[in-house]
């Protein structure tokens, strides 16, 4: 029963991870740029939610739409203004560019907030539901619900809207897309914006669960990659599945072995997947 509680908690956290990773998957899957500043963008959103909470008392859950919009705009601007020139450039240049961006974000946050951990005080922080004998933290349930709604919204967007389909066309065949008249630059900017929006939403939700501090960013960038590769590039359900898996494995390994070991298992999983099934669990075949 204890294990069940842990697994469920892992699943709930994993849903938020999935939303974060979804952003990464979308960016990498369409634009083929590795967003090494992914974690930093999420932390930025977390701080935005924190500030909003301090100033107005607004619950991060309710701040979610604002965080999403803010990060969308940031992502759009970054892609259009800066990153777009680096799409065809070698991997290491892209890496350095995003590293620089990430460093500036982290440094700005450090300058603004200092290195101490910050969190939001929630009235319902200690509430929990009990369903079929399993104890569910209210905070986790709400966060997971938010995440699933975000994932669903994005999936619907790509499936049913014209822009969404246009973006998918770009991902499949960039030259072809240009030939039929799609404005690839604009679509890429929207895509990056959407990826950033995911991460903004995820950040707002994550603030419900953990404290924020400028230096946690790289861990989440890495986590995002593990999840995306695990679940399969280009697969949105893969990102979610990967997130859930990683959430559970972290929870379990943290409990069974030791808390500091939880990422070790994730890395081992990553190594295994990269070697054995690089397209991931749900990704399109090689």
């Amino acid at each position, binding site marked *: 029963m204890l294990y069940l509680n842990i697994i469920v908690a892992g699943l709930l956290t994993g849903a938020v991870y999935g939303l974060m990773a979804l952003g990464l998957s979308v960016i990498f899957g369409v634009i083929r740029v*590795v967003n090494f500043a992914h974690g930093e963008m999420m932390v930025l959103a977390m701080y935005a939610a924190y500030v909003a909470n301090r100033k107005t008392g607004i619950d991060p859950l309710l701040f979610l739409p604002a965080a999403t919009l803010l990060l969308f705009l940031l992502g759009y601007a970054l892609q259009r203004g*800066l990153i777009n020139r680096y799409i065809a*450039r070698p*991997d*290491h*240049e892209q*890496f*350095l*560019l995003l*590293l*620089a*961006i*990430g*460093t*500036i974000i*982290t*440094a*700005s*946050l*450090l*300058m603004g907030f*200092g*290195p101490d951990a910050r969190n939001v005080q929630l009235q319902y922080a200690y509430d929990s539901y009990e369903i079929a004998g399993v104890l569910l933290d209210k905070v986790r349930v709400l966060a997971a619900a938010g995440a699933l709604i975000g994932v669903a919204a994005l999936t619907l967007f790509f499936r049913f809207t014209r822009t969404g389909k246009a973006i998918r066309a770009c991902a499949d065949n960039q030259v072809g897309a240009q030939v039929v008249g799609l404005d690839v630059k604009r679509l890429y900017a929207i895509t990056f914006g959407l990826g950033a929006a995911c991460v903004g939403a995820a950040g707002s939700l994550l603030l419900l669960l953990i404290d924020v501090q*400028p230096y946690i960013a*790289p861990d989440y960038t*890495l986590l995002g*990659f*593990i999840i995306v*590769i695990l679940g399969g590039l280009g697969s949105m359900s893969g990102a979610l599945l990967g997130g859930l898996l990683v959430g559970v494995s972290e929870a379990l390994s943290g409990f069974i072995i*030791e808390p*500091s*070991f939880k*990422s*070790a298992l994730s*890395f*081992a999983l*990553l*190594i295994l997947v*990269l*070697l*054995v099934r*690089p397209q991931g669990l749900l990704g399109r075949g090689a």
Partner: protein
Amino acid sequence: MRETRRRAVALALFAVVMALLPLFVSTYVVSVLIVVLFAAYFGQAWNIVTGFAGQLSLGHALYVGLGAYASAVLFVRFGLPPWLGMIAGMAIAALVGSLIAALSFRFSVTGVYFALLTIAFNEFTRILFDHFGWVGATSGLFLPVANRIRDDLLMLRGSPLMFYYCLLALSLGALGLSHFLLRRRIGYYWQAIREDQEAAEALGIDVFRYKVAAMALSAAMTAVGGAFLAFYDNNLYPDTVFAIGRSVEIITAPIIGGLGTLFGPILGAFVLTTLGEAMTQVSSGFAIDGLKQWCYGAALLLIVALQPAGLWPWLERRLGLAAGRR
């Protein structure tokens, strides 16, 4: 060729200046220069696998750590001189590097995926060492600091000056090795693989073998630097030695200086360390957390935006040292 002669002269000048510098500057500057030389050396070593052979490794701190721990543990537990312990470190690092490369390339894991794989191995090892009791785990491993009046080169116990000259020799040696390799078949083949792997194969190059060799050499060289790091710092913690931040640090200098060039790593090391120190001095006046980092990030951004091929190719042309291409 005139340019080759000029380059040789410039290099000799550089070596002489660096050798005499400690006589004229404070111990603080010497310690900063040691940081530069470490960065230059690690950058040179990394340049071999990523700059020459074109395989992006983002987890090179792994080899720093392996070299550091191997030599340190052998010294602390068995009294083995670091020059021998270093060899053990090189062997272990070369083995691990070869394994990672062989596994990856066998399974066609390349490009970004390969880079992520190197990060994964790096992090995994860090966590492993965090729990490795015999080498101190998270509490760290400490080298006894002997109270000696003179420098002990054999046991690498001594003043910063001793380390300075060791590292200078190491950096110049790495430069020499890189230069030597680039002019030989292995260097040509590595670059061919980097430029176009398919074309390289069609010309008779066993791509797999050469890529693994690049990784093995790069790892071994990095491990040597790791050993010196251990004996210079006198303490080792998995979370600092194997830190991903260190992996990122290692690659920043060569990229800024010029990936795949001969002098890029050294130039990059000088520029970045000077920048870092200047930032520290400036921001300590303001006492603002993160200002140094902000300027650092901004500098990186500027260089990537304006001179993505690195500063050395640009400087080379200005100084009239460009030998046609490199």
